[in-house]
C-alpha cells in the first residue's frame, strides 16, 4: 500500500506556516503487526530501517516489517558521534565504506529529508613513527582504491585545524596526519527518521515497542518471530540488533564472534564555531568535532568488559578528556554538558558481519563495533541485497561469518581502533 506524503521543502514550510503547522502529516504510521510478512527486520536502528527502505525500493519487497524493542533510532544510531569516512585499509573495507559514503552524498535528496551530511573532512593524526607508517600505508591504499585521502605534514595539519597543539614539546607530538575531505558528519536522528519515513511511504510497517522473544524455526529454516505483540510469520528474518545481536542469536543457539561492550561519548555546552572539521587520534585517543548546534562532540573509548547497561567507567571519560586537553589546551574551561553510553558489538578483527547463517532465511548484520553509523546506508543496501537474493553482494561477500573459521579475517584494528 502506498501513502503519498507531502514533500518537504521551504515551500511546504511556508504553506504550513499559514495553518500554524497543524496540517503536517505523520512521518510514519504506527501500525499493529500483520500476521505475516515477506521479510522481517529485527532492529529499528539506522541499519535496520535502511535495510527495509532498500528492500522496498530496490528489491520491490513492500510487505515487510521492522520490529523495534524500544523506539526507532534509540540505540547506537542516537548515541554515536556521527563521524562518516571511508579511509579504511583493506580493499574489502574500502569498498564497503566508500559504497556507503557515495550514498551519503545524495541521501538527503533520496529521502527528501535533510540528514545534514556535512563534508567538513576527517583528519587522522600520527603521534609516533609506527603511526606514520600505518597512516601512510592507508593513504596509499586509499588513493589506489579511488578514495580521496592525503597525507599532511605537521604544518599542513596545523593549517587545516589551527587550534591543535602541534608543538614539538608535547608528550606525543603530532608528526603528521591524513585527511579525507569527502568525510564528515551527519545528523544521527535524521538518518533513522528519514529512512523510517521513506520506508513507511512504500508500505513498510514500522512496529515500535515490540520486543523479539524468540525465533521459531522448522528444522534448518526460520518460520517467524515470537514478540511481545504476538507471533509474526515470515521465512526471511534479518537481524540488525547491534549490541543485542548475541541475545537474538542465542534464541537459535547460534554463537557469534562478538562481545558487547560499553562505548561512551560526551558533548560540551554549545559555543560559537571553534573547530570546523573532525579530528581523530588513535594513539592519544581523542576525537572531536563540533555539531551545528555548537556542542563539541567527543567520543571516548570502550571498556574492556561486556556490559548491556549503556554505562561505562569514568576512567574512560577522564582518559579521553585528558587526551583532548593535550591536543586542545584551549578547551580546559569548556564544560561537559552530557555524557552517555551505548552498547557496541565488536568482532575480533574490528570488521562487521553482513552474512547468511547456516539457518535458512536467517541473516545477521552485526559486529559494527564502534563505527557502524558511517556505514548505515551502505550496510542497509547490501544487507537488503543479501536478504532479497539469499546471496551476498560482492561488496559484502568478504564479511561473512565463515571468515572466523577459515582465518581469512579483515583486520581493521589500525583503521578502526576505537576512534570513530
Amino acid at each position, binding site marked *: 500500500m502506498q501513502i503519498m506524503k507531502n514533500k518537504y521543502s521551504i515551500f511546504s514550510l511556508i504553506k504550513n506556516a499559514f495553518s500554524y503547522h497543524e496540517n503536517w502529516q505523520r512521518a510514519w504510521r504506527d501500525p499493529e503487526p500483520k500476521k505475516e510478512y515477506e521479510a522481517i527486520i529485527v532492529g529499528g536502528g539506522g541499519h535496520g530501517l535502511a535495510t527495509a527502505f532498500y528492500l522496498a525500493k530496490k528489491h520491490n519487497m513492500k510487505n515487510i516489517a521492522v520490529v523495534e524493542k524500544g523506539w526507532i533510532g534509540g540505540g547506537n544510531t542516537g548515541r554515536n558521534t556521527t563521524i562518516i569516512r571511508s579511509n579504511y585499509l583493506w580493499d574489502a573495507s574500502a569498498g564497503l565504506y566508500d559504497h556507503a559514503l557515495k550514498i551519503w552524498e545524495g541521501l538527503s535528496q533520496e529521502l527528501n529529508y535533510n540528514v545534514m551530511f556535512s563534508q567538513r573532512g576527517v583528519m587522522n593524526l600520527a603521534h609516533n613513527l609506527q603511526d606514520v607508517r600505518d597512516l601512510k600505508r592507508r593513504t596509499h591504499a586509499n588513493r589506489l582504491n579511488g578514495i580521496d585521502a592525503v597525507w599532511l605534514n605537521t604544518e599542513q595539519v596545523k593549517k587545516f585545524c589551527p587550534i591543535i597543539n602541534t608543538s614539538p614539546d608535547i608528550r606525543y607530538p603530532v608528526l603528521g596526519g591524513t585527511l579525507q575531505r569527502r568525510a564528515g558528519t551527519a545528523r544521527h536522528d535524521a538518518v533513522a527518521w528519514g529512512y523510517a519515513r521513506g520506508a513507511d511511504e512504500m508500505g513498510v510497517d514500522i512496529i515500535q515497542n515490540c520486543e523479539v522473544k524468540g525465533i521459531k524455526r522448522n528444522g534448518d529454516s526460520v518460520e517467524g518471530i515470537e514478540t511481545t505483540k504476538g507471533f509474526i510469520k515470515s521465512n526471511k528474518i534479518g537481524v540488525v540488533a547491534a549490541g*543485542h545481536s*548475541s*541475545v537474538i542469536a*542465542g534464541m537459535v543457539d547460534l*554463537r*557469534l*564472534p*562478538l*562481545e*558487547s561492550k560499553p562505548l561512551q561519548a560526551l558533548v560540551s555546552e554549545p559555543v560559537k564555531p571553534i573547530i570546523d572539521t573532525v579530528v581523530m587520534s588513535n594513539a592519544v585517543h581523542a576525537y572531536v568535532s563540533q555539531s551545528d548546534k555548537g556542542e563539541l562532540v567527543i567520543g571516548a573509548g570502550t*571498556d*574492556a*568488559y*561486556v*556490559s*548491556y*547497561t549503556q*554505562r561505562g*567507567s*569514568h*576512567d574512560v571519560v577522564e582518559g579521553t578528556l585528558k587526551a583532548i586537553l593535550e591536543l586542545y589546551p584551549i578547551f580546559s574551561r569548556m564544560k561537559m554538558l552530557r555524557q552517555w553510553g551505548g552498547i557496541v*558489538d565488536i568482532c*575480533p578483527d574490528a570488521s562487521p558481519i553482513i552474512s547468511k547463517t547456516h539457518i535458512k532465511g536467517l541473516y545477521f548484520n552485526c559486529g559494527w563495533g564502534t563505527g557502524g553509523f558511517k556505514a548505515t546506508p551502505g550496510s542497509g543496501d547490501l544487507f537488503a541485497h543479501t536478504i532479497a537474493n539469499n546471496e551476498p553482494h560482492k561488496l559484502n561477500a568478504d564479511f561473512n561469518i565463515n571468515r*572466523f*573459521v*577459515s582465518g581469512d579475517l579483515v583486520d581493521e584494528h589500525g583503521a578502526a581502533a576505537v576512534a570513530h
Partner: protein
Amino acid sequence: MFLINCPYCGERDQSEFSAGGEAHIVRPKQPTELSDDKWAEFLFMRKNIKGVQLERWNHTHGCRKWFNMARDTSNDKIHAVYKMGEKPPIK
C-alpha cells in the same frame, strides 16, 4: 567504577584490574585433533551473555592473580568472585 573484591587482596577500585572476557573456555588439550569449526569456537565464538556471566579478571596492579567473577551484565552487579580452578558458585 566497580568496587571489586579480589579473592586475595580484598576490595579494590576497578582501575587496579583488567577484564579477561568469558571464563571457563578451556584451551583444547589436543588442538590438532579439532576441526577448523571447533577451533574457531574456541578462538572467537563467545556467549556474550546478557545476564549473569562468568568471566575472568586479573588484579593487574595488585597481586597480579587471575580470578573468576559472576557478574550480571545487564546491571553490572557482581554476584561473586572465585579463584581459578574453583567451581562457579552459581549456575
